[in-house]
């Protein structure tokens, strides 16, 4: 190019990970505060010790379960169910969501039915699933998949419908059709909504996991909850709740990381520093 001006070079932006230094400390303030209040409540004797054990007792309960080999298998059982249920539910939701979002005839065919199904509180399906599928893994996975399905589906459909028509036009003007148009324009354009759906779907999956395991299970965190209730062990119940919180937060963090990596291009408001 003519002229001696050297063009400005733009550095590719760095991905800022959510947990780092000060951020990590800041995110621990509230949990530590809760722990302190908890300990305070125990010291004040608000409830009896068996109803509200101190935090350290909960950790002791964890060690106890670990010693008799019940901690890891139960955690793994739950993680496995959530992974499978969420994976299957999301996969089906992505296929149906894309189809309904892209094609108005398909929307006409499936949209109303799916919306009606969504209106049914999903726990209402439990008796039917148990009746049809027995009390093994199948009804639990189906329930979790159902829980994950709707957030993914709904967000994806609305995401597809919010795509800027001008960008689709660019794709068409530059020769993209059918699959290439779907893959290169529609999917990335709808991806922010899909990511939101996947994260909401994961939260729902954990919710439905507990519901499924509370009903009938011989392993899993829901089983530990019931077991704790039946044996009057508040420490085990609290332990299960804390494990659920950690697992839910951890899996969501993984998804958030992936989302950030894939959405490096987006120029949306991320909150003030």
């Amino acid at each position, binding site marked *: 190019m003519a002229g001696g001006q050297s063009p400005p070079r733009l550095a*590719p932006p760095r991905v800022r990970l959510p947990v780092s230094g000060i951020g990590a400390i800041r995110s621990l303030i509230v949990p530590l505060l809760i722990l302190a209040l908890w300990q305070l409540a125990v010291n004040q004797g608000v409830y009896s010790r068996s109803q509200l054990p101190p935090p350290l007792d909960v950790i002791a309960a964890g060690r106890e379960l670990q010693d008799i080999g019940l901690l890891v298998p139960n955690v793994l059982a739950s993680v496995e169910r959530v992974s499978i249920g969420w994976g299957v539910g999301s996969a089906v939701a992505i296929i149906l969501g894309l189809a309904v979002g892209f094609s108005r005839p398909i929307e006409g065919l499936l949209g109303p039915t799916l919306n009606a199904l969504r209106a049914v509180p999903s726990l209402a399906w439990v008796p039917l699933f148990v009746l049809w599928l027995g009390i093994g893994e199948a009804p639990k996975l189906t329930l979790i998949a159902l829980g994950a399905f709707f957030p993914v589906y709904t967000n994806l459909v609305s995401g597809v419908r919010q795509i800027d028509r*001008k960008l689709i036009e660019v794709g068409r003007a530059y020769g993209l059709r059918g699959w290439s148009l779907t893959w290169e324009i529609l999917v990335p354009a709808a991806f922010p909504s899909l990511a939101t759906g996947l994260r909401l779907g994961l939260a729902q999956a954990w919710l439905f996991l507990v519901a499924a395991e509370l009903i009938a299970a011989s392993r899993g965190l829901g089983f530990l909850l019931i077991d704790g209730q039946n044996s009057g062990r508040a420490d085990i119940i609290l332990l299960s709740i804390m494990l659920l919180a950690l697992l839910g937060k951890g899996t969501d963090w993984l998804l958030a990381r992936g989302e950030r990596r894939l959405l490096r291009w987006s120029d949306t408001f991320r909150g003030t520093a």
Partner: protein
Amino acid sequence: MAEAVSIRGVARVFSGQGSQVPVLRGVDLEATPGEFVAVLGASGCGKSTLLRLVAGLDSPTAGEIKIGGRTVIDCDPRCAMVFQEPRLLPWKNIAQNVALGARGVPDAETPAAMLERVGLAGNERAWPYQLSGGMAQRVGLARAFVRKPAVLLLDEPFAALDAFTRLQMGDLLRETCRDRSRTVLLVTHDVDEALRLADRIVLLGGKPASISAEYATAGHDPSRLRAEILGRFGLKEVA
């Protein structure tokens, strides 16, 4: 290689909420292969609409558009369009955006080489949101140029550029088209730019709009032509 563009009796009526808005009526324009035609017209008169029709992004209500003797029915692969806004795909980096234009072009320049030509060397990996308006518009130009289209459609491509870059991009455009290997339709507001670049200047005017005047630039004194064209706009503006 360049193809002729033939626009005959083209009309476009937009219909919305019960009302019919005729934007173009009886537009006739013939561009020979390799010709550079500038389209001038007041804001909102239908210039972008006309280019979209030629690109096949929209279809005329009446009349016919042909490229190289073949009627345009759908997005035409022989065209490359620079839109009035840059319209970069936000999820593709700059090089990938340019590569979209090179899709299916056998001997296309590399995105890096093309970006260097528009003065954006070294920015291949930047995301569109990091660019200024003028930089983004130049990426849009690069995306169209790599395509080596038979018909190049430019919708006010230099509007977001500063005066200096504008001249540079104009030179690049002229250089790219000097060998007459592409037919160009350039929509612009800038009479001087049209005079400098085009073989022929057509004015789009009226409501609904049609071609209201045509001027060949070759062999004419630019300043007289300029005065005449500006005069026509002046009259239009006052009326």
